[in-house]
């Protein structure tokens, strides 16, 4: 029988594998990481004694449960950690494991590739000491490290307060929590957010904890610059009243929400549509996560929904696979999972509206700001080529002319900001600004991985 392959051993991939195993199948679970759990439920490095209960706080129970379930699952699946899927061609996956490439044919493919931080650049964002919010949290969970001793949290996300709380508890000083979203926008989104009261309550608890701890929380800020000679020394902002404020710090965590990692879905043939709330191109899926005849997408890698939604959507996509293999399906369980996924994703959609991606601030960035750090392309260079005669008006052509998005990260970091600059310059909506097309390798691979010539 053709293999069922799951990419990604986070909550979505693990739940999908569980569902398949419960129905007598033995999926292959491929993960780029060394330890299962994905990013949110990441385990500390081997030999590192971290108090994960304290670090995970209210999510500690779920964290422990997921890892327990994974341990129980391990004998019943073909688990392949430290394995990068660098290309997909038809029904063949091209893998990179231990520095060597190999191929794997699949019958059904479920991609649960997770999400990464979305970056809004500002002057000085490439200085050492500037991290993504997710990176700041991973430094803690994976290595027990802090990104600095006095950290500023900037962005547009409810997770700013959560990460600040984790940092404070691990001994860091919090310089400021600065959110680009005005308080009024957050309040007006409250009715929608009440669809997931548990998550909403958690967010409010984090905010309250920050206030209790005496941390400055600003709403509706305009980022001005990260300042420093050779590394971060201060964060400069304009507050909601238009006053310039400087916060001394030795690290900045930037958090503007997450974006699905969709490159593999792209290579596997998924179709994409522009999403106005998230301002991202997202793969098209049906209610169960189907994106093609043998392609299924689950978790934050297809729609931001958080860990609980990821678990449910992974199980749901596994049920879809069972159905497509003409195996008996538990219709009642599927309905329940579908409702849960729908509700949690609607909550995240509400969050994306409340904590909006600051498209106007990005469109107004000064020309001198580095947009693409891999290829060292400034905002001004992009505007420059676009304003010429016969200049490009679409992201792929802008990339061809400027090299923005052509470097090591292939636009995973600069892509969303590039998209806003292009849309603003072209005076078009996000859909018309185009989508950076995925190409293999999705991550850089060394020549040596290909082996030697006969």
């Amino acid at each position, binding site marked *: 029988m053709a293999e069922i392959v799951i990419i990604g051993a986070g909550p979505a991939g693990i739940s999908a594998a569980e569902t398949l195993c419960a129905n007598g199948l033995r999926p292959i679970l491929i993960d780029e990481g060394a330890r299962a759990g994905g990013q949110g439920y990441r385990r500390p490095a081997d030999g590192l004694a971290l108090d994960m209960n304290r670090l995970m706080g209210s999510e500690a129970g779920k964290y422990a449960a997921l890892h327990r379930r994974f341990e129980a699952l391990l004998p019943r699946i073909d688990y392949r950690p430290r394995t990068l899927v660098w290309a997909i*061609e038809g029904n063949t996956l091209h893998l990179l494991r231990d520095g060597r490439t190999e191929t794997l044919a699949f019958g059904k493919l479920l991609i649960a590739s997770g999400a990464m931080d979305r970056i809004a650049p500002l002057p000085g964002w490439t200085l050492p000491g500037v991290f993504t919010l997710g990176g700041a949290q991973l430094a803690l969970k994976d290595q027990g490290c802090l990104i600095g001793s006095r950290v500023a949290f900037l962005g547009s996300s409810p997770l700013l307060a959560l990460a600040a709380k984790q940092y404070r508890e691990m001994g860091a000083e919090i310089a400021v929590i600065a959110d680009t979203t005005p308080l009024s926008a957050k309040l007006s989104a409250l009715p929608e957010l009440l669809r997931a009261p548990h998550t909403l309550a958690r967010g409010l608890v984090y905010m309250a904890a920050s206030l209790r701890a005496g941390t400055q929380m600003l709403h509706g800020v305009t980022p001005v610059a990260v300042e420093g000679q050779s590394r971060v020394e201060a964060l400069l902002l304009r507050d909601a009243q238009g006053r310039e404020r400087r916060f001394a710090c030795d690290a900045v965590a930037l958090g503007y929400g997450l974006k699905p990692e969709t490159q593999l879905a792209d290579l596997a043939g998924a179709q994409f549509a522009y999403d106005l709330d998230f301002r991202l191109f997202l793969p098209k899926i049906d209610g169960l996560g189907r994106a093609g005849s043998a392609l299924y997408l689950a978790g934050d890698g297809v729609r931001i929904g958080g860990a609980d939604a990821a678990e449910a959507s992974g199980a749901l996509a596994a049920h879809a696979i069972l159905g497509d293999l003409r195996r008996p399906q538990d219709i009642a369980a599927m309905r329940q999972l579908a409702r849960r996924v729908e509700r949690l994703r609607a909550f995240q959609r509400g969050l994306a509206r409340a904590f909006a991606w600051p498209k106007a601030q990005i469109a107004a960035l000064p020309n001198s700001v580095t947009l693409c750090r891999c290829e060292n392309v400034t905002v001004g260079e992009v505007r420059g080529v676009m304003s010429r005669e*016969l200049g490009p008006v679409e992201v792929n052509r802008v990339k061809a002319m400027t090299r923005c998005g052509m470097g090591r990260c292939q636009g995973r970091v600069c892509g969303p900001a590039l998209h806003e600059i292009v849309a603003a310059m072209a005076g078009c909506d996000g859909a018309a600004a185009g989508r950076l097309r995925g*190409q293999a*390798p999705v991550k850089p691979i*060394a*020549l040596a991985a290909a082996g030697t010539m006969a």
Partner: protein
Amino acid sequence: MSERTTDVAIIGGGLIGAWTAFFLARRGQRVILIEKGIVGAQSSGVNFGNLRLQGRFPGQYPLSLRSQALWEDFAGLIGEDCEFEQTGHLYLAYDADEQAKLEGYAEVSESYGLAIERIGPADLRRRWPWLGERAIAATFSPRDATANPRLATPAIARAAARHGAVIRENTRVSAVDRSGDGFKLTFADGGSLSCGALVNSAGAWAHEIAERFGETAPVFPAGPPQFVTEPFPYLIGPSVQAIDGSVIFRQIPRGNIILAGYPRTAADPVNNRAPVPPAKTLAAMRALARVAPMLAQCHVIRVWSGIEAYLPDMIPVIGPSETTPGLFHAFGFCGHGFQIGPGVGLCLSEMIVDGATPTPLEPFSIGRFRSVTAVSEKFRREFD
């Protein structure tokens, strides 16, 4: 006779069409360049960027050398930079047969006045110490160069526009008809224009236009898989090619190494797709590591391809139609049109304005496809 919209219409806004528009406009012709998508987006924009002189089809040297002089004056002619670098081109042989082939190429090049250095193993290692141990001989042609194809065509089109050419992007031609001693073009959006002369530089789509006038060429679309690495300290210098066709690469001053691998891959001009099969990515990576072992830990970050037009004898169609006065063809450049682009544009402008060009173009006549076509050895080697 009704007033014509323009003297010359050019269908196909690639490198050839843009250079032709440029030279015609500079001669005072009224020119309209029509492109179904955007200027320079197909093979003109995605090719390797090689301005190679050694190892070309012998009958092409007069055109090639004329072109190189134009590339060398690019900034003066066009008023913009296209990252032109006169790096030279190094051809490598790995065995005696290959060395004999190199020698054959070198003698042809020299007969047209090109300077070719023959380099033995010791000098190879001394001058380019990063080369692997296995190359036994090489020829070096210092006048060969490279440029950035993504930048070149739009820059040439802008220069043509400054000389008065009209550039119409996103304009699809739905019909081409004879009208008196000129032509009438109808566009998919309903518009039309009339012209005295018509240039068919529509690349992988060009045979459709030729066929409207009772002649054809067996064009088929394909693309060479191409790759780029992360930046690496700048030290490679020339554009380097293994004569067995396994790999060609060059390093740009910012450090990235650009490589093209073979064999080429069939492309889909209807859906505008030119895939890069991962197996070819890996084959090219192995071939590059053989030539330059120091790059073993250098990472490939991106691959691409594009739709190029190929002909079975691996030489293009350039010149007047044999059925229809006023119609000129320039297509099927078989993956080596970048270097000769400016020369082709100049020759076409001369044929249209003066009635003749001093550059010999007989080998490139479309008429050669009236009889059975020879399939070149290069063609067999460079495709699957």
